[in-house]
């Protein structure tokens, strides 16, 4: 095994550069090193000016999403040895404006987040019980998968629709809305429908399905969106066929 590998890292320093450039670093190739370890090696020993986000280095905080050899990945879960012989191409996540180097701007997602009401909406007439809401393991299974999202934004980077339509709510957000809708304790589905069933909600999605493939945590946002479409369609049919119905 060669003992070094080249990483081609995208650099963009807004106070100097008009457009991103690529800088190559030679780093040691160790079998236990992830791309993140490689970047840390560069930052600590070679070039202190390289900027990127990272924190937990165990795939749960969602900070270190990057485009690695063309794919959206968590740098802390991507091993250098899987990208031999190199060079490993490390770019910022696609579909986001670049602040600097590998750091992308996430304000669009953060601003949209509250619109999906990602919190438990309970019956406001009733005070919360003084015991827990009962929820069987089967009821929990309904939404559990959608609650595993770490907001790493890989699905947004993988989604061509988000790249084209900045208004699109996007995979993680709709999956999160679905996470609460499917929770047996929640009564907020009607409130969320307005936002999620708007044109820039589920209907913008063309089911490319890349979001689900990109997700490092096994969430299936594409499935969440399709299920939401089914629900919305059913509701519409009901209201068309039974206009005098309950609503």
């Amino acid at each position: 095994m060669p003992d070094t590998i080249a990483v081609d890292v995208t650099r963009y320093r807004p106070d100097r550069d008009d457009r991103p450039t690529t800088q190559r670093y030679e780093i040691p190739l160790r079998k236990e090193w992830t791309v993140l370890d490689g970047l840390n090696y560069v930052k600590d020993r070679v070039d202190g000016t390289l900027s990127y986000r990272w924190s937990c280095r165990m795939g749960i905080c969602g900070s270190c999403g990057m485009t690695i050899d063309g794919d959206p990945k968590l740098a802390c879960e991507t091993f250098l040895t899987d990208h031999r012989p190199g060079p490993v191409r490390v770019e910022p996540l696609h579909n986001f404006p670049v602040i600097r180097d590998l750091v992308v701007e996430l304000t669009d997602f953060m601003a949209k987040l509250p619109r999906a009401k990602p919190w438990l909406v309970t019956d406001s007439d009733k005070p919360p019980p003084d015991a827990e809401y009962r929820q069987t393991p089967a009821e929990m299974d309904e939404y559990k998968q959608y609650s595993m999202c770490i907001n790493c934004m890989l699905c947004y980077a993988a989604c061509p629709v988000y790249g084209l339509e900045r208004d699109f709510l996007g995979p993680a957000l709709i999956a999160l809305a679905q996470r609460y809708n499917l929770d047996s304790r929640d009564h907020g589905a009607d409130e969320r429908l307005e936002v999620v069933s708007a044109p820039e909600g589920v209907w913008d999605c063309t089911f490319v399905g890349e979001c689900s493939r990109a997700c490092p945590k096994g969430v299936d946002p594409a499935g969440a969106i399709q299920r939401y479409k089914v629900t919305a369609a059913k509701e519409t049919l009901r209201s068309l066929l039974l206009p005098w119905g309950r609503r």
Partner: protein
Amino acid sequence: MTIRHDVVIAGGGGAGLRAAIAIAEARPDLSIATISKVYPMRSHTVSAEGGAAAVKLPADSLDEHAHDTISGGDWLCDQDAVEAFVAEAPEELLRLEHWGCPWSREPDGQVAVRAFGGMRQRRTWFAADKTGFHLLHTLFQTSLKYPSIVRYDEWFITRVLVDDGRVGGVVAIELMSGRIETITAGAVIVCTGGCGRVYPFTTNANTSTGDGMALAFRAGAPLKDMEFVQYHPTGLPFTGILISEAARAEGGWLVNRDGYRYLQDYNLGRPAPGPVLRSMELGPRDRLSQAFVKEVEKGRAIDTPWGPVVHLDLRHLGEEVIEARLPFVRELCLDYEHIDPVRELIPVRPVVHYMMGGVDTDLHGATPLDGLYAAGETACVSINGANRLGSNSLPELLVFGARAGAAVAEAAEGRRAPGPAVLAQGQDERRHLERDLLQRDRGRERIAAVREEMQQTVEQGAGIYRSGDSLTKAADKLHELQERCGSVAIDDHSRVFNTELTAALELSFMLDVAQSVVRCAWLRQESRGAHQRIDFPTRDDERYLAHSLIHLAEDGEPEVRYRPVTITRWPPAERVYGR
């Protein structure tokens, strides 16, 4: 430019978000700024795995939880704080349930509880083995409901401003733009988490650099019990990634190179096939980590390129239990060690995990400095004493986050406009950041080099076992490193997302924390909980049934005082496990 809020919360993790929600609920008219150097869902709370303790089963009682906590903490806990903590923990966890936290369930739909180290009853609520992740995301998502919470995501606080003995705000850098702003507030709650990165090998995230401890210390608040640093017995070699205590609570065994469950040799009980509460692998973390060191000394550990390890054996649990209860453990082993715990042994070694000490607060999160509060791992209310029990930290950040929030909501009534001195200090800090750091042309030292030397120094001087000798050496070395820190190179002169600047600031925070740890450890001439002095191997209640408090004296030098431990109903006794 100045931004005004009623309250500044430093840190957007579990404690900070809980405090913010508490204030927003009690006083919707107050404007709350949560300032965090990362987006809230990146905070280190996210990495907590095993669970959160609170009395749940009919057979359990608050007194038992209190006693487990106090004996686990080797009687250094303030018992009034522990009593408040165990009493409020159940309602806090229940509130999380009402906010949507996906706690794991029994077949009948009730919240399930599991066994945990040092606990006499099953009382640890859990969300599989991603409890911290679910807790943090539930809090974060719930916090989005409240319009009075204004988030400053990716802002780095460099200083807490104090005028006339009263806190008046903070100075912070917006990382995205490099703006340096003074943000004034009548109260500041420090919730910045722990400081594991002071050590070379830690479960803690890159961001756990003790910022809040150093900020409070520099502002004049004392740090309490800093010599008590918890080593978790099961971290993955090389990365230091945590393998949750839940792995042992579900029945995992710790074995040495001979496949022998060595804990039976360390006064922790006799091996049984299934997990036994407060026995063997379910002993407290300090004792298990110390047992590891002894095994290494006896030559019964396994040598690896990353130092000696022992094995955690989960194979007998079977795939079904591992998938249902410990999926994250399996995921981490597969991803980072390329082994499957269903069929293979997990190599583990002790790893720095938690800081029992922190900013000294009372039961309401208030520090002795007027207007400054703290909660979570940053704070030391003294419920953890000399050794924290696993699964007590998550309820702690909820209970005392909420309490700090409530206290601030109440006290904010008499808030005053910030005085000119606060604004002047803000200007001062800004000039310092711009001139001394951003424009620094020549630096002799690499940040990472100084940081690594500091980490090795603290590990060697103040590790699982310490001595007067090792601590003296460490103190001298840290003093030298402090000097060198003043001349680290900052090659990055850009304002935009300058992570070299923040790394330099974090390094100086960590050096303050490291020096506090070493100094307090040197002064405590006894062995208690996680603080084990080779030269003073026994507990000494005559002299040291007391908290150490380190603060900056008038002359700018640190000074240590002691305050007696509050004992209410449980007089000091021997810690008994396995019997």
